[in-house]
């Protein structure tokens, strides 16, 4: 054993042990590590945010891009919520963020997810595998009929669709284990090799 003399390695190792301690139960050690971590990461978010503001809004604004005064004013209006008689003003910036967010969601949904997935399903139905992919897609989509009740002859379709979805979920689950275990191996190597020097 050749224990590390680096302060950084010690801090990292203690933090990792604190996090793992929650697997036994909630305890003061975990609680302290959690609070320090949340404080530091939220601080980092604020620092990054201020840098973004400087580079994307303040510098261009003082450099003559006057239009940027609009989002700055709107941004300030977010704080109107703390003043009861003007709190409704904070809806203005929120509506811009929501509207723009909705626009982005809408265009992305059509392009990559609907049209792309539909064309990918138009395959040559000459093998059993192709049929499984094709029927699996149709049946699982049929599960999502929310206002029509598929009954009688068609009643089995959403049910089979759920079976296909469960098969996919099981597969995705099994396929993810390796990546998660890799992450733990990385931490264990850090603790045993970098920190304890075994």
């Amino acid at each position, binding site marked *: 054993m050749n224990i590390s003399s680096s302060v950084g390695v010690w801090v990292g190792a203690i933090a990792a042990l604190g996090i793992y301690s929650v697997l036994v139960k909630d305890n003061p050690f975990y609680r302290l590590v959690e609070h320090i971590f949340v404080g530091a990461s939220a601080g980092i978010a604020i620092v990054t945010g201020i840098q973004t503001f400087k580079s994307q809004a303040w510098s261009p604004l003082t450099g003559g891009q006057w239009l940027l005064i609009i989002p700055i004013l709107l941004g300030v209006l977010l704080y109107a919520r703390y003043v009861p008689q003007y709190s409704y003003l904070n809806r203005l910036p929120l509506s811009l963020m929501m509207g723009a967010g909705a626009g982005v969601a809408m265009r992305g949904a059509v392009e990559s997810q609907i049209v792309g997935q539909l064309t990918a399903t138009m395959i040559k139905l000459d093998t059993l595998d192709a049929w499984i992919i094709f029927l699996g897609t149709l049946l699982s989509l049929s599960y999502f009929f929310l206002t029509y009740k598929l009954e009688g002859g068609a009643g089995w379709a959403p049910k089979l669709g759920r079976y296909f979805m469960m098969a996919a979920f099981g597969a995705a689950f099994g396929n993810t*284990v390796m990546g998660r275990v*890799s992450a*733990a191996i990385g931490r*264990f190597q850090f603790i045993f*090799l970098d920190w304890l020097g075994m």
Partner: protein
Amino acid sequence: MNVLEKLQNIDKRVFYLLMALAIAIPTVSPIGLAVDVTPAVQRTFDFVSTLPEGGRAVIGFDYEPGDEIDLNPQAKAILHQLGAKKIKVVAIASFPAGAMFAEQCLAILEEYGYEYGKDYVNLGHYAGGEATLAAFANQPTAIYSKDWRGNDTASLPIMKEVKSMKDFSMAMTLNDGPTGGTGTHEWVRQAVMAHNVPLIMGVTGVLAASNETYVQSGQCKGILAGLRAAAEYEKLVDKLGDGTVGMDAQSMAHLLIVAFVILGNAAMFLSQKAKPASKGGAA
């Protein structure tokens, strides 16, 4: 609660402890659980074996933190083989972190009596992706006036020997994809197509399939994919290392989970048989 019910509701902490052991034991001492060498890895190993002793290799460390779990073990396994053959090594990196990984991996060469600056060098990070790699291929010292440790490259004996990419008997890229750094495709163009230097690749697991085409076309002499390939290579060079550790831990962790699932189901079925009216375990 009888035994069968207990087996359906084992305390989570028992599992956590076993899982920690499954990962910790191989980390501290590799077991070398059954890993069969696949043809792709064997081909890569055989290709490197055919290189002339005392030749030169350039290795690109084209990956970022997070992927070193897969790629550092590959790099180390290959370096053992190169070290045994006294092949000189020049390391370059298209990511800043890649240069740091290179430094960690190259330390292996000291075991084989290598001398820094004479037998191997870590040139460090270059920006600009393919364009810079192309310039490097024409004249390495034009891109690097100093190495990663801050030495003047002009003063290093190894750099006097490499005037262009053609002076290398092999190129290798350890690659985690085309985003941000130099991708495998760029290496094929700059090493193989422009200078006819044989290329091998080490990639993360997910990139294996997309790079298979280069092997089929003969533009890539061998490919290592993921931690598993590293474990196989370690078996070939007979140096069990992080790849074996990783695969041992992976195997044990996966088996442990499956064993628990089987245990839970077996207990459930046996207890249902014993009392047909009873319900199963927790949802």
